[in-house]
């Protein structure tokens, strides 16, 4: 297979520009980046046809060996239409988030610090809840282990519950 350096370079520039805008906090920017990346990937798929030939239309006198590879074209065609759908959907999301939040001049930005706090809280919750469940069943099992005493059996039985309580308080 051979490649057109121009198309490869164009694809790379579009992709790089798209990715760098997608990393911003503004949703509109993300969408613009998405469109650039979409166009770039369409070029990439199209590149796979190799050298361009005639349109893949089998009219009179068309040599089937001279036409472009139609397979990437079919892929790109569906990708183009899907791009339209996704773009519309993301625009609706942007509009809706802006409308609900009534961000006004803030536009479509999302708060940075709120995100970070939320992440940290979720992580702490996860550790806490899982450890608490495990500890609960372990305590139950430990509580059933006999604690012997030098004294008589009666005393043992009377004091057992009190000791258990002390033990539990002693534990972290």
């Amino acid at each position: 297979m051979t490649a057109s350096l121009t198309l490869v370079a164009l694809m790379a520039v579009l992709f790089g520009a798209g990715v760098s805008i997608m990393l911003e906090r503004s949703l509109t920017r993300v969408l613009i980046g998405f469109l650039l990346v979409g166009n770039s990937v369409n070029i990439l798929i199209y590149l796979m046809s190799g050298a361009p030939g005639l349109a893949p239309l089998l009219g009179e006198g068309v040599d089937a060996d001279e036409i472009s590879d139609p397979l990437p074209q079919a892929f790109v065609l569906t990708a183009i239409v899907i791009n339209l759908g996704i773009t519309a959907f993301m625009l609706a999301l942007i509009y809706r988030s802006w409308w609900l939040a009534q961000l006004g001049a803030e536009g479509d930005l999302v708060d940075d610090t709120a995100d970070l706090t939320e992440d940290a809280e979720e992580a702490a919750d996860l550790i806490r809840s899982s450890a608490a469940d495990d500890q609960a069943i372990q305590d139950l099992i430990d509580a059933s282990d006999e604690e012997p005493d030098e004294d008589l059996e009666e005393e043992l039985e009377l004091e057992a519950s009190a000791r258990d309580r002390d033990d539990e308080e002693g534990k972290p």
Partner: protein
Amino acid sequence: MIASLAAFAAAALVMPLLARWLGRRVFAVIALLPAAVFVLLLTWLPGVLAGTPVVEIVPWIPALDISLSFRLDALALLLALIVTGVGALVLLYCVHYFADDEPALGRFAGLLLAFAGVMFGLVTADDVFILFTFWEATSVLSYLLIGHYTGRKESRGAALQALTVTTFGGLAMLVGLVILAVAGGTTSLSELIADPVTGAAGEWAIALVLLGAISKSALVPFHFWLPAAMAAPTPVSAYLHAAAMVKAGVYLVARLAPGYAELEVWHPIVIGLGALTMLVGGWRALRQYDIKLLLAYGTVSQLGFLVMVTGFGTRDAALAGVALLLAHALFKAALFLVVGIVDHAAGTRDWRKLSGVGRRMPVIATIAFIAAASMAGVPPLIGFVAKEAVFTAFLDAVAAGDSWAWVALIGAVAGSVLTVAYTVRFIWGAFFSKTDVADTPLHAESPAIAVAPGLLAAASVVSTFAIPFIEPLLASYADELPGGHDYHLALWHGLEPALALSAVVFALGALLVWGRQRVARLQASVAPVLDSARGYLGIVSVVDRVAASITTAIQARGLPGYLAIIMTVFIGGLGAASIMNTSWPAGIRLFDYPAQPFLALVMAIAAVAAATVRQRMTAVLLVSVTGYGLVLLFGMSGAPDLALTQALVETIVLVVFVLVLRRLPKQIAQRNPPVHKLARGIIGALAGLVMAVLGLVALGARIQPTIAGGLPALALEAHGKNIVNVMLVDIRAWDTLGEISVLVAVATGVASLIFVSGRTGGAPRLDAVDEGVNRRDRLRPVPEPAWSIRAPRTSLADTAGESDAAGEAAETRQTWLLAGRTISPRNRSILIEVLVRLLFHPAIIVSVFLLFVGHNAPGGGFAGGLLAGLALVARYLAGGRYELGEAAPVDAGRLLGTGLLLAAGTAAGSLLFGGPVFESAWFETEVPLLGTISIGTSTLFDIGVYLVVVGLVLDILRSLGGEVDRQEERQTADEGDGAFTTGDGEHGDEHGGTPGEGAEFADGDEYSAGARLPGDGARQPSVERTEEARS
């Protein structure tokens, strides 16, 4: 067998409904199912004893040689009888164990019944992967049943422990089974045992499978999950964690022993860990206060015993092992059920608080006594018969000079001593009166609750005397192992060494009971050498912390943060891979044709500029430059379909962008610190570079010729000359069907996001205000006020009272579009109206033309649909949302649905004629002027695509166009209204809304909005008129 499994599955599914209706009595009904299967199994008994197993095979995944194969031989039948018999009794017990108001009773009943079915499948499955599937299903059901009390921390913790440990072992087992299946060349368990896999593959495979078995059967070091599982309701403990599920590991050991007992890994695992587990379990059982935990540790001990005996590898040991298996299922299930009754009656399971229970519950105490005696191996019970057989088998093996036999014998004797001791502790603790402890208050229990444990205890007695009838089934399995066939199970073998051993065991057990305090002190002073529960908790806690810290580290900072991580991984991973790459394209041209570099340069500049400008609109326009550039690139290099579609899509995208962005602030807020800006630039540049290399590598990596060579012939076969279109609607129609499904989802999503209440319907119609309006009167002034027409004009409806010039103009100007008058005169352009008027219908005709010629020339459903959509865009832009409603007076959802139905119907239609999905058919005819027309099923499919695309554009327009217009007008009007109507109480009441409550506006009624026009007094009559019109 398959029919029985299906019955279990079906019954389990209807359980939640049935339980709502019957309450706890539902258990009595469903107990009939395992009971029926039990009887069915008994009818197969003679055939199985005669040596002909029942076999059922249904092919499932032939490519992997996996079939739903089931094989009922002697071992499977024994286990299946235990599973269904005990299962029926436990379900019967549930009737009295639970109250009608027990939460999630239906779920519990369904899960328990499903478990019985799954366990039945596990012991009868012959395909190793089917076996594994059932194996894992029991783990999951066990998890759900242990966690029955979802609100209790200890239930959740215990459930998760059991699941984690058993699935860990299960996964190891899967690897082992895969090795066995590959090395042995079959997935049939019976064939793998008849013709064992040997060598290193066999050793590794069996070690891994045994790892699964010992985790399931709670052997050391995995034993800790079983006591924890006692957080489950007692019927679950009795059934899953005593009689059935934990026996799965024992079953697997017994199943594999005939083929694999001679492997080197076998004896250390089976006998070594078995003996150790028997001692550890017994030792722990001896220090429990909680009688249920005592039984749980006892079960651990007995499971070690069972694995050791069944896996020992001689015929006599196998016979003893399966006898012990039967005995254990009978006595341990009975004991657990008894504990449940005591717990219910006394409200505690701590024997320090139980006193005088036996005296007041004599029946229960008798049952417990019989079952416990069987556990301790007291004659004349089945437990004694089995233990005698075990001792004899081990003594014989010791005499034969087997070194592992010593381990087994010493482990069995020492374990049995502990068993005797903890049995006494259990009976004394649960039922005897203790000095200085007042009699425990007891609730009355229904006598019927004793039926199930009573039957199980009775079976422990009866089976001893029925041993000549039971032995053929057990021996039928045991005879598969090497060894003499002369030993028989019996209550009395005469005075022989095994009997002496039993006597020693009882004596030592009595000694332990007598020296109970010393034992307790010893136990407390010996530090737990092997506390794997602590080890588990430590591992889990480390995993939790690591997972949480990694998650917070890589998923911080919202969307940009995620994307940055993803792109960094992309650059690092694929970049590293492409450095090591060796395949490069055969040749690199600078360009394909001279215009290409020029176009590319323009597009590249536009892309970089789009990344840097601050104005939203400018950025969008710059992106469009790259889009239209693509049109030219495609058009000039043999891709007319792509060029056409890209041009249409690009235009629609641009319009949609404008529709939304007009509402957002002009400037894109810049909140990114400079350091981030630099990082973004670097990530973007590197990502672009990696993509460039990847593109080149992909081009060079092709080793097979393209399939394009065969496509022209295929296209002609499909009656089409445009190969791209034929691929979309015929060759790769599945792909397209998937794509239009996505489009339908997207359209619905867009509408749902914008229309808050009710997204169905089409664009608003002119005569929607009053259905009674004559359609011919449409050219009259519109009765519904248009929001674009703001002060000083308010509504076209009351132009009679108006005198300003704009009103005059609107009244008198010629109407080129149906809803032209709803637009503010200032926003109207006669030129555009005329153009749209002239071009709309031709555009629709061309779109239909594109649709039909698409098979042979550039076009097709996508291009046609997009062009029709673009025509609608033009109507909307020229005449507003009412114009859109008049241009496309249909429900967008209906268009989408019809299109999808047509496409899917075309796909499925060929099934009716016995063909595969998407098989095409054609109807050809000569038409004057047009020539040969070939209408095929693929044409119908393309019409479906067309309708979906039109529906998508319509949904976008009426949402992001019309509805956004309306919301904006409402908001503006409300803000204006707030100023205008201050002090006008009546008016204020009518509105209710205040500026800023954006979300509510959308919920409001479209027409009552008429009352919110700015300016009031003079307009009041108009308001009333609209209101009248509505009613």
